[in-house]
């Protein structure tokens, strides 16, 4: 007697795709009902942070996929954040134009510096982006007349009076995260993404096929910095405060670690990385130092035993499930 299980009749790749849609559906539902489900504002707050950090993590992922590891990405987040904060507090700009500016200004900086910085690769690119990040942090700190110095900027207004509370802002952040991460995903799965990967795998070969490597890299760099600038603005208008310390080496490192821990080959990597690493410190509050020791140990352990990142756990789980062999 034949089982009535329709899934058996589907070929394996279609089964995997169906499973992916089911998982995405579950995730979407979970994200939508999250603030209603948890009464404690604290968990909504963590989720909002995770969503915002997904934007920056995904934006750095564009660079990572291109083979350029930046340790200065948070500087661009700061440029965007300060742009938006200053325009709205000092010049009284409404949120939308300030937000747009928060994408444009870091993108312009990337456009100017990109052709210089992106000639470097590997270790040298790490070092120069690190130095750039420190320079920008110093600028934020010292240029008191502009940025308020180490004290930071206070009373940054919410995007709209309606979005002043955490639950409403959560949905706003969810929308922005979906848009930004979706955009990034679309970019990576398009022809442009094909050549991003080609450049990473062999820029010599890509160039000999006609890819204008440096110009291409600058294009991706501009997009990446614009996106993380937007995160800066969204964070500023959420926390209503920003200071130079939020945009230093530690933050840049975080973005890189999301990518490395989550997995560098797919966009799911930094998303998982952000979810895991942003929520962990918040959940382990109370043992701040011990939890940071744990953070450091996790980095080492993942590098030693799971170099493909946490995404690999998901991949292997998919393989083990009884849905037949998938493609590749």
């Amino acid at each position, binding site marked *: 007697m034949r089982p009535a299980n329709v899934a058996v009749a589907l070929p394996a790749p279609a089964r995997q795709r169906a499973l992916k849609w089911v998982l995405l559906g579950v995730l979407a539902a979970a994200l939508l009902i999250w603030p209603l489900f948890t009464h404690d504002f604290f968990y909504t707050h963590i989720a909002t942070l995770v969503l915002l950090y997904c934007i920056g993590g995904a934006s750095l992922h564009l660079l990572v996929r291109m083979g350029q590891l930046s340790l200065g990405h948070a500087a661009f987040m700061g440029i965007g954040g300060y742009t938006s904060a200053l325009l709205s507090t000092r010049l009284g700009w409404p949120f939308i134009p300030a937000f747009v500016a928060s994408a444009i200004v870091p993108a312009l900086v990337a456009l100017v510096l990109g052709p210089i910085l992106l000639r470097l690769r590997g270790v040298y690119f790490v070092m120069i982006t690190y130095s750039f990040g420190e320079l920008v942090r110093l600028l934020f700190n010292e240029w008191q007349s502009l940025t308020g110095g180490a004290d930071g900027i206070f009373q940054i207004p919410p995007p709209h009076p309606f979005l002043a509370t955490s639950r409403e802002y959560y949905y706003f952040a969810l929308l922005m995260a979906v848009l930004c991460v979706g955009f990034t995903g679309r*970019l990576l799965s*398009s022809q442009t993404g094909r*050549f991003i990967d080609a450049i990473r*795998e062999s820029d010599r*070969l890509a160039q*000999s*096929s006609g890819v*204008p490597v440096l110009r291409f890299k600058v294009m991706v760099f501009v997009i990446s910095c614009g996106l993380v600038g937007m995160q800066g603005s969204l964070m500023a208008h959420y926390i209503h405060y920003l200071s130079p310390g939020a945009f230093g080496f530690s933050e840049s490192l975080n973005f890189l670690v999301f990518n490395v821990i989550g997995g560098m080959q797919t966009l799911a990597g930094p998303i998982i990385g952000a979810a895991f690493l942003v929520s962990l410190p918040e959940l382990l509050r109370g043992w701040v130092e011990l939890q940071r020791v744990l953070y450091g140990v996790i980095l080492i352990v993942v590098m030693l035993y799971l170099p493909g990142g946490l995404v690999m756990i998901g991949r292997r789980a998919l393989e083990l499930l009884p849905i037949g062999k998938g493609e590749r």
Partner: protein
Amino acid sequence: MSELLQVQGISKRFGALQAIELLSFSLNEGEIVGLIGPNGAGKTTAINLISGVMRPDRGRVFFGAEDVTGMSPHVLVNRGLVRTFQATTVYQDQTVRENVLRGAYAKAYPGLAKSLWRGPQGISRHDEAVIDDLLAQLGLAEMAQLTARNLPYGHQKVLGLAIALAAQPRLMMLDEPAAGLAHDEVVHIESFIRRANASGISVLVVDHNMRFISTLCQRVVVLHHGSELATGTPQEVTRDQRVIEAYLGTSHEPA
């Protein structure tokens, strides 16, 4: 027949080594020209200078009557000048098909905005058909889904050729396309090159194997100590006294 490529007196020095010295030759549309010389004669440097990887210290390169001296490699590809590499350069971790798709950048990349608009199904039907046709012509169709790393060496060389052809060049410069291949694989590569030439692509083949060059090329330029020693048909060149002297005791022919 018009001149497609004209190299005029290019020179290149690396420190104390004058790798190329006042090298001049030309290639007409539709020709298969060989550039031969013993190892160390500067053959790869010559290709590097013409294809834009390096800038010549002196001299000019003309492609289709345009001065392209020192232009970047990707610019030249867009003008129809493509080269391959000596060591097989393929995307090791990608499928054969993906490799060739990446080679088609110059013809198939629609730009940032359009690529976003089209999304994952970004390649047009037409471009896909061109690629599939190319794979079939080079005998790679059955292996299209195999990872390049797992291909036997001979097929990787053919794949390198496919990647170059995907750019639909006017002139293809091949750096030792038969190096390290067994005899029947060499025959295959020869036939693919001839077929490409028959479809209108001019070819510059660089190699140290005189027999391979003689079979394939209509005209040969002999390179010695960085400059042109002799030019002519393979028969003329192999009988040239200066060439014989230069070749005494150098490369042996692989089987």
